């Protein structure tokens, strides 16, 4: 199964809708990083509302993916971690998720927009004519 990566202008949206195997998680990582480079995305929102298990492996894949995407030059927000998933991650060990998080996709997109504006990038905000 490939996870669809949607493009909204210079923002990429990914919603993980199914419990991923390790191989699928690695595939997702490489697909997303390649796509970010290809479209020179300014921001990426990864929605994991549907994930009911995030173990240390998946947490590492999410963290690594976020770091890779940032290295390329894009901002990343992880959206919609379930409360019981958050509890489990913290109980297992601190710092399993180091990326920035938001309650839902909508807030995640706002956060991305604010970040992109903050770093002075007008390509996304559409203020080129100012």
């Amino acid at each position, binding site marked *: 199964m490939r996870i669809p990566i949607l493009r909204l202008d210079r923002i990429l949206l990914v919603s993980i809708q199914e419990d991923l195997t*390790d191989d699928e998680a690695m595939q997702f990582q490489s697909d997303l990083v390649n796509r970010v480079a290809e479209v020179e995305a300014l921001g990426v929102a990864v929605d994991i509302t549907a994930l009911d298990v995030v173990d240390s492996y998946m947490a590492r894949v999410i963290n690594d993916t976020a770091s890779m995407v940032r290295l390329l030059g894009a901002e990343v927000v992880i959206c919609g971690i379930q409360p019981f998933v958050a*509890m*489990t991650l913290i109980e297992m060990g601190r710092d*399993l998720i180091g990326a920035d998080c938001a309650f839902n996709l909508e807030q995640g997109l706002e956060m991305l927009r604010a970040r992109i504006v903050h770093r002075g990038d007008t390509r996304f905000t559409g203020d080129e004519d100012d």
Partner: protein
Amino acid sequence: MTEPRPPARFAIGNSSDIVTARQAARALSAHLGFGKAHQTRLATAVSELTRNVIQYAGEGSCLIEDLSDDQERVIRISIEDHGPGIPNLPLAMEDGFSTSGGLGAGLPGARRLVDDFHVSSAPGLTRVVIAIRKPA
């Protein structure tokens, strides 16, 4: 009370077996009335431990048992492999220790997620037995 479910044994040999085992553990805990937080903890612990099997031994098995009685709901899960064993068990139970480049959250992390946790390991047989319980 309802009749206990028959035990289910899953072969663990690749990463999709991890998903199958953790989903089965979650399904049984939901069936027995454990809350979402317990279901998630158990499924996550099974995920960590079955991944260890693949990573360190290549293959093994995961046995899921419903040991509930009139007083208590109990799920016991035994994860076994015939790999080289854990050379230094006390060290492997420490946070952040990993021989595989992982986060080192596997064993100590899984221990914190369940009510009972027992691990025994020697070359040729490593067995981790975990359980969650709640009053019936």
